[in-house]
């Protein structure tokens, strides 16, 4: 049985991650799980496979057994007695498979845990340990590296982005019949600095058009930075705090540089969570300006009468998928439903929904981890069934990650639905002309 001193330097570093954070919240959750297994059916992986490896309590154990082995008195003396494990090859292999490949850090299990163990928090801490061991799955790591090195996770050159946005601006002018309609780029002193998910300029430009049209209708003062706009933060998902801080920090610097009053985040669940909620922890202080999701902004426009919607323009049945990081871990729960109920004439809820909603299966960085692709799609069957039961022809979701996963589920499970962002549905229902402001 090896002690810490006998371990290789990278394994020692991994354990230092645990040791350095051993206080307060982490210490509490590491010591709380009672191995009751009653969280199994709250996790879409276990629901799909019925495999005990995927019981959230077992995911907790992946890290708590290391804590017990190296940092608890009984685990040091009698490791087998308390199920403590050495940080050896077998343990590490299981950790990678279960914590990267078998958990989306959706947090559904925590809400339903008999004790209140913060499972995704522990999973993320364990991912940080695996990151120290250089074991972040390749696809996820390369997405982070691309963001760090090029400024956005799809390595879109600035010129390509500018061309796309200018083309979208032309389209917007034609659509609203107003030559002054604009997508303002790099403009200082605006009220809002808006971010994008790089998938938007690359594959889904209509979601940018939708937001631009809504901003136009609301008469908003806004801008997009053409060199610092990426709302995603995959380093949050890999557990790499340093990279995550760096990525979030760039956006914060840009807000200051462009003297914007607020940072407005695109429809991206994990990006919202990382920047809005986790960023202050990485920086050790609150932002000096508000950070909000575009969904919150749109809801405010509707509520204040700044934009008007005609739900008959979206006559098909619409349902809503709640992105875990925006809803359960982000607190944006009612806004999107408030908006959709006014933008579509037949809006129906999935069951369960809101804080109880199931993950689509694409969260936690799964979409970038090709090695777990089959598992991601299979575990997504829970979501596909939820959608099918609503009878909806359109699924709205305020997250581009979820959109990608839902599109794949749509194909594989032949759901025959259209997947849209909330802004796209709102833009289709917009009534332009004199506003009630």
């Amino acid at each position, binding site marked *: 049985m090896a002690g810490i001193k006998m371990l290789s330097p990278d394994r020692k570093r991994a354990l230092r991650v645990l040791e350095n954070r051993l206080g307060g919240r982490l210490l509490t959750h590491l010591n709380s799980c009672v191995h009751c297994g009653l969280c199994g059916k*709250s996790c879409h992986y276990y629901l799909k496979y019925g495999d005990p490896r995927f019981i959230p309590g*077992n995911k907790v154990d992946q890290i708590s057994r290391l804590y017990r082995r190296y940092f608890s008195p009984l685990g040091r003396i009698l490791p087998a007695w308390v199920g403590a494990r050495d940080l050896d090859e077998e343990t590490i292999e299981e950790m990678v498979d279960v914590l990267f490949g078998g958990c989306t850090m959706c947090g559904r299990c925590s809400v339903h845990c008999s004790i209140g163990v913060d499972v995704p928090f522990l999973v993320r801490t364990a991912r940080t340990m695996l990151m120290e061991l250089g074991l972040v799955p390749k696809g996820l790591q390369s997405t982070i590296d691309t963001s760090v090195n090029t400024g956005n996770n799809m390595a879109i050159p600035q010129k390509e982005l500018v061309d796309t946005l200018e083309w979208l601006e032309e389209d917007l002018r034609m659509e609203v019949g107003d030559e002054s309609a604009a997508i303002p780029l790099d403009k200082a002193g605006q009220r809002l600095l808006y971010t994008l998910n790089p998938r938007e300029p690359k594959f889904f430009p209509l979601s940018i058009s939708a937001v631009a049209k809504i901003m136009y209708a609301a008469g908003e003062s806004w801008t997009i930075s053409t060199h610092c706009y990426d709302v995603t933060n995959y380093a949050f998902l890999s557990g790499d705090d340093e990279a995550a801080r760096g990525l979030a920090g760039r956006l914060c610097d840009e807000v200051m540089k462009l003297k914007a009053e607020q940072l407005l985040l695109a429809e991206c669940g994990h990006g919202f969570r990382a920047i809005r909620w986790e960023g202050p922890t990485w920086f050790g202080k609150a932002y000096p300006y508000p950070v909000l999701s575009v969904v919150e902004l749109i809801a405010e426009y509707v509520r204040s009468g700044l934009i008007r919607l005609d739900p008959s323009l979206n006559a098909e049945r619409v349902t809503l998928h709640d992105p875990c990081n925006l809803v359960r871990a982000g607190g944006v729960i*009612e806004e999107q439903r408030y908006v959709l109920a006014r933008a579509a004439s037949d809006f129906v809820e999935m069951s369960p929904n809101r804080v109880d909603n199931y993950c689509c299966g694409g969260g936690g960085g799964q979409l970038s981890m090709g090695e777990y692709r089959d598992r991601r799609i299979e575990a997504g069957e829970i979501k596909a069934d939820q959608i099918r039961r609503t009878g909806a022809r359109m699924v709205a979701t305020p997250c581009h990650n979820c959109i990608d996963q839902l599109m794949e589920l749509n194909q594989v499970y032949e759901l025959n639905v259209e997947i849209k962002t909330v802004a796209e549905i709102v833009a289709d229902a917009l009534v332009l002309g004199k506003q009630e402001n």
Partner: protein
Amino acid sequence: MTIPHWFLVAGLAIFTILTAGMLRKAVPAWRSYDPSRPKGKPVSGAIYSLTGAMLPWKKESARLYPASYIIGVLYHTGTFIAFAWVALLAFNIGLPEVLDSVSVLFLAVTAGCGVALLAKRIASSDLRYFSSPDDYFSNLLVTGWQGVTLLTLLNRDMLSALLVCTGVLLLYIPFGKLRHAIYLIPARVYLGLFYGRRGVWPAKDRQSWQA
């Protein structure tokens, strides 16, 4: 004071010192761990976490497993009753006899619940998968101790055995799986602060955003 009394006192003293040390590391960070601007009220989230969120119809761990939930609640209630009896018996405080009889019956049920939970752990391949000897032992220790409490209520000559058992239990709690008894409330508070700050807990009335 007899030797078993002293053993119990020593066990209690060590338990108290260790527990205080553990809580001292776990609790004070609650004020400072998250500097983000709140959307909701962290303290309301923590209160909800300890109350509303624990209601059986709110949690799948209770809702989907009603038998396990009821058995678990009874079992833990038995532990509190047994502790109360240990305190009364150790100080030779008498209660009306009818309470003795009721407690005997109740402890028989709760110890039975402990056996049922142990049987479930042994029978379920899912639970066995991530259980350790500590999980089985912790159950046996608490169930056995409830049983000894019951026997002591029937026959006061068992008091010494009960005091020693209680001392052993108190000494073991901070070391094994039973330490969840120490961390349960902090865990729920931390989870509640997390969801409370983000405006997720207390679970809102569905239409509240529009108001």
